[in-house]
């Protein structure tokens, strides 16, 4: 229930932002809240799980991590593209994670996908094993193993007590 | 309401009552009840004779569609009186006859209903002064005749005969209608009498001759004139009373009526003279010539009717010359032809009616009408023989019967006309009496055949087995009344001439001052003149020909079957059916691709054609806005994506490329300052693509187009032309800047409609109605998708296909 309330606030905020009034008004926020109630009513059955929003700072950290990763990985891809002669050995490898729960798994998978040279192709049925395609398998393997602990920690800081 | 209207309506009213009440009446009674109608009408009409004889006419107007000058105008004069007396008189006799002729098992209510319809229609024809109402009744006679011919519709021949008669007579009627419309457009009135009185004003009109021809077409088809006569023999499939009534005494004479009625209008034209006389004579000859070869008595009578109708027609043609010449002492003489026509019209009805009834009796009692199986019936059917003999001799033009009188007058008229030198008669005229004479010889021959082959000679044994006997008295009374008239008219022709024919002559020659002059004195003996010599020749030559009939009859086989008019008709029918089928099938292939190419070709030809014909192309870059490089690239992206769709072999690729197009169009909308459009286009494009993908589950992948190079090339050319047409017209339209757009009004949207998004205020307010309906469209589509998915034909549902 609490999570949903937060979500509602979030929608109201979103609303306020979307309306783009010159100065934010409380009435706009309220109407956003009403809109949120509507949406939540339609959607509430999708939300069996809890929703944590109070770890904003951790979240920001995580987001920054995301940004950093995309920057690095993009430039490494571009480097590959612009290299006159392609010298890569693509391949698929597996990685087993300790994270559990859909949000954690998803966040990690996204992070891994943003990691230079790797894209998560499959998640095992249990959600514990990732099958990762690597642009250059040797290099990526190393890189993933190096940074994965860092990722898992950043995620857990947001998701766990 | 006047009597004339009542006369027309009574048969219809009774006809309408029959289907309602017939179940409550005993079957026998229907006929007797129906008989009351013509009988009472006949008696009523006789009361008009004295007044009509004084050249009174009776005219009444009843409004039907006054807004378009369509009114019910009855007009009763001498000409209509003759016909109406025939219609009701012969009608009475025929109904009396039919009561005994038709078996109780027949659906008598149908029969009498049709018969009364016909009677009413016929009376309507002769009593109508209004062209369109006349036409209405005219077609109704065709319709009722159709129904009567098809009375035994389980017989194939009946249906064929009915179809033929209806097709030919209604077609003629339609031609006549066009003629009537032309008369109206020339004269501004639908009233025959008014047209007659204003004839000078229209006879120079360019449409006058076409109108004449079209009206004649109607008359000729109805009166079975060559070459339209072919329906009449086939119409003999009708019950014999019908043949006696419609197809000899009345309906076929409607054409005669029309010609007589329109003689004051068209009579002065050479076309009229030659068409009516020529076609009449040709019909006269052809009918009599062909009658001889018939073996079915009824068919023989049918051809004889054709021939006699030709005779009457030609007489009216000859009489029309008097109209051309105008009133003078010299021209009076030519009116006698018309007089003879009317006279013979009545005579023919008497003897031909009697003959048909005779044949009906033979058929009824003996069971066949085939002269090859008949013979020697005189002792068995003595009364019937009497009818046959008198009727035939009258028809052959022998004294002391009425046919003799009119035939003599006919010869006289043909001879007189040769002395004229108008309408190139001086060179061609001599043919007229010759044809008349030759035709009369054949007439004599077939009259002998009727009597000789049926009543003389040896009786065939198989007929005797049936134990034939004379007909019941009820079937004999009507023909005896008729042959009584045959003799009676011969004895007192001038009574008829004075009271009946003279007023009718006044109708044909309204401009001639004295009707007395128009009425010759008819006498049986007028000296040993040329006419009589011709008759004597007829008897001698005809007798000889009859005697040697077997010797020369094979000449009929000279004309192969497939060159006869009948087979020509059949050929035309089947040819037009086949040709139309082939033609239609050739382009109506059912192949959608073909249909599209027709549409596109018409589009290109018509639009581009008109565009260039009218020299509409104007174009300049003056008012065009600038093009940035990125826009140019986008244009090329669109072009490449579009062209690539043509070559792709995968459905997904084509849908994806269509998506590229859609997104590019959306971006164009961005560039062209259309935010709402861009948004909508983006969403719709994506949803459409998703729809494609969802539906692909049920659809096959693309296959290479297995079309020939030629087809591909043609399609390519068509496509390029279509695109080019849109482009050139589009360029010209851009260049066209004459008007200020109404859109500027919407720029005040905030004040008017309280919104700042102009497009949205248009959609939601100014043109909200469009939006409302567009929502409905969307809803229908959604519901429709649901319906056609859920509603599947059951296994058992047979697909009925053509």
């Amino acid at each position, binding site marked *: 229930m609490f999570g949903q309330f937060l979500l509602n606030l979030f929608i109201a905020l979103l609303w306020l932002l979307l309306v*783009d009034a010159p100065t934010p008004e409380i009435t706009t926020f309220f109407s956003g809240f009403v809109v949120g109630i509507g949406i939540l009513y339609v959607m509430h059955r999708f939300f069996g799980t809890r929703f944590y929003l109070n770890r904003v700072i951790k979240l920001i950290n995580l987001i920054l991590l995301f940004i950093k990763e995309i920057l690095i990985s993009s430039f490494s891809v571009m480097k590959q593209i612009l290299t006159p002669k392609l010298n890569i050995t693509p391949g698929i490898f597996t990685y087993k994670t300790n994270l559990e729960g859909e949000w954690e798994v998803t966040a990690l998978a996204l992070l891994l996908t943003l990691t230079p040279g790797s894209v998560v192709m499959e998640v095992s049925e249990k959600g514990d094993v990732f099958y990762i395609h690597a642009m250059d398998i040797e290099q990526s393997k190393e890189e993933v193993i190096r940074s994965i602990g860092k990722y898992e920690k950043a995620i857990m800081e947001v998701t766990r007590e | 309401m006047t009597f004339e209207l009542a006369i027309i309506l009574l048969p219809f009213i009774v006809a309408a009552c029959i289907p309602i009440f017939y179940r409550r009446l005993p079957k026998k009674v229907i006929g007797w009840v129906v008989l009351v109608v013509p009988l009472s009408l006949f008696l009523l009409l006789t009361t008009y004779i004295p007044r009509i004889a004084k050249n009174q006419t009776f005219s009444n107007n009843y409004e039907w569609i006054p807004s378009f000058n369509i009114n019910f105008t009855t007009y009763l004069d001498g000409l209509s009186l003759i016909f109406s007396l025939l219609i009701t008189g012969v009608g009475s006799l025929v109904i009396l006859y039919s009561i005994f002729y038709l078996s109780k098992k027949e659906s008598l209510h149908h029969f009498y209903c049709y018969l009364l319809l016909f009677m009413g229609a016929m009376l309507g024809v002769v009593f109508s002064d209004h062209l369109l109402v006349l036409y209405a009744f005219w077609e109704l006679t065709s319709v009722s005749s159709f129904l009567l011919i098809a009375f035994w519709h389980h017989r194939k021949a009946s249906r064929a005969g009915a179809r033929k008669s209806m097709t030919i007579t209604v077609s003629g009627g339609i031609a006549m209608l066009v003629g009537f419309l032309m008369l109206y457009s020339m004269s501004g009135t639908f009233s025959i009498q008014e047209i007659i009185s204003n004839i000078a004003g229209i006879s120079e009109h360019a449409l006058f001759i076409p109108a004449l021809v079209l009206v004649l077409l109607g008359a000729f088809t109805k009166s079975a004139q060559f070459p339209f006569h072919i329906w009449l023999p086939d119409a003999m499939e009708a019950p014999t009373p019908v043949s006696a009534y419609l197809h000899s005494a009345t309906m076929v004479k409607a054409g005669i009526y029309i010609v007589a009625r329109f003689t004051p209008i068209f009579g002065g034209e050479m076309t009229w003279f030659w068409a009516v006389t020529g076609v009449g004579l040709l019909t006269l000859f052809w009918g009599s010539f062909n009658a001889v070869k018939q073996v079915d008595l009824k068919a023989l009578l049918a051809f004889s009717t054709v021939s006699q109708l030709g005779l009457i027609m030609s007489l009216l043609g000859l009489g029309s010359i008097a109209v051309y010449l105008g009133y003078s002492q010299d021209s009076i003489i030519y009116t006698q032809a018309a007089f003879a026509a009317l006279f013979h019209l009545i005579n023919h009805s008497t003897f031909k009616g009697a003959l048909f009834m005779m044949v009906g009796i033979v058929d009824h009692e003996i069971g066949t009408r085939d002269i090859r199986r008949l013979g020697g019936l005189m002792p068995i059917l003595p009364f019937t023989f009497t009818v046959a003999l008198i009727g035939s001799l009258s028809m052959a033009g022998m004294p002391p019967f009425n046919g003799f009188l009119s035939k003599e007058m006919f010869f006289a008229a043909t001879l007189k006309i040769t002395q004229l030198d108008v309408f190139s008669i001086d060179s061609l005229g001599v043919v007229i009496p010759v044809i008349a004479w030759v035709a009369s010889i054949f007439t004599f021959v077939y009259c002998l055949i009727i009597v000789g082959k049926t009543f003389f000679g040896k009786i065939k044994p198989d007929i005797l087995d049936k134990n034939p006997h004379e007909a019941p008295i009820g079937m004999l009374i009507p023909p005896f009344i008729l042959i009584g008239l045959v003799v009676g008219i011969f004895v007192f022709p001038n009574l008829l001439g004075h009271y009946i024919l003279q007023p009718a002559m006044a109708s044909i020659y309204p401009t001639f001052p004295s009707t007395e002059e128009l009425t010759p004195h008819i006498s049986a003996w007028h000296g040993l003149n040329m006419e009589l010599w011709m008759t004597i020749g007829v008897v001698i030559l005809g007798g000889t020909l009859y005697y040697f009939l077997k010797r020369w009859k094979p000449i009929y086989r000279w004309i192969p079957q497939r060159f006869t008019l009948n087979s020509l008709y059949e050929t035309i029918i089947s040819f037009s059916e086949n040709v139309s089928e082939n033609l239609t099938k050739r382009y109506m292939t059912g192949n959608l691709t073909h249909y599209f190419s027709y549409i596109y070709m018409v589009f290109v030809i018509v639009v581009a054609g008109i565009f260039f014909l009218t020299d509409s192309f104007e174009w300049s870059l003056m008012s065009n806005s600038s093009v*940035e*490089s*990125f826009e140019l*690239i*986008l244009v*090329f*992206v669109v072009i*490449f*994506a579009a062209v*690539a769709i043509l070559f*792709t072999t*995968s459905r*997904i*690729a084509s849908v*994806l*490329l269509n*998506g*590229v197009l859609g*997104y590019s169009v*959306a*971006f164009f909308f*961005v*560039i062209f*300052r259309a*935010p709402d459009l*861009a*948004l909508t286009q*983006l*969403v719709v*494009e*994506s949803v459409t*693509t*998703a729809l494609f*993908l*969802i539906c*692909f*589950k049920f659809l096959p992948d693309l296959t290479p187009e297995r079309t020939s190079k030629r087809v591909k090339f043609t399609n390519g050319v068509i496509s390029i032309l279509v695109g080019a047409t849109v482009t050139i017209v589009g360029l010209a339209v851009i260049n066209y800047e004459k008007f200020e757009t109404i859109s500027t009004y919407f720029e005040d949207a905030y004040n008017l409609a309280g919104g700042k998004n102009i497009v949205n205020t248009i959609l939601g307010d100014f043109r909200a109605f469009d939006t409302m309906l567009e929502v409905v469209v969307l809803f229908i589509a959604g519901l429709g998708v649901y319906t056609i998915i859920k509603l599947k034909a059951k296994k058992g549902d047979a697909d009925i296909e053509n």
Partner: protein
Amino acid sequence: MKETIMLVALTLFMIAIAILLYRVIMGPSMPDRAIALDTIGVNLISAIAIVSILLNTKAFLEAILILGILAFIGTIAFSKYIERGVIVERKGDN
């Protein structure tokens, strides 16, 4: 000058789209085309942003978000189609 640079950027994005079009047309595999279309959509987002600046209007900013959403939905739809032949499954399919 600013406008010229932005026009250059816009042209660059268009060039990218044109290049991607090659991938859409040529494939060879279905996922190749899908990726390329997705990327075209994403590039269009930038293009719309630049046009918005050039036209000095906020009217198209919704389009940016929408395009992002649609490109995403589209890619999901395509990948499901490629993977399973069905976009909307029933339970027990799969």
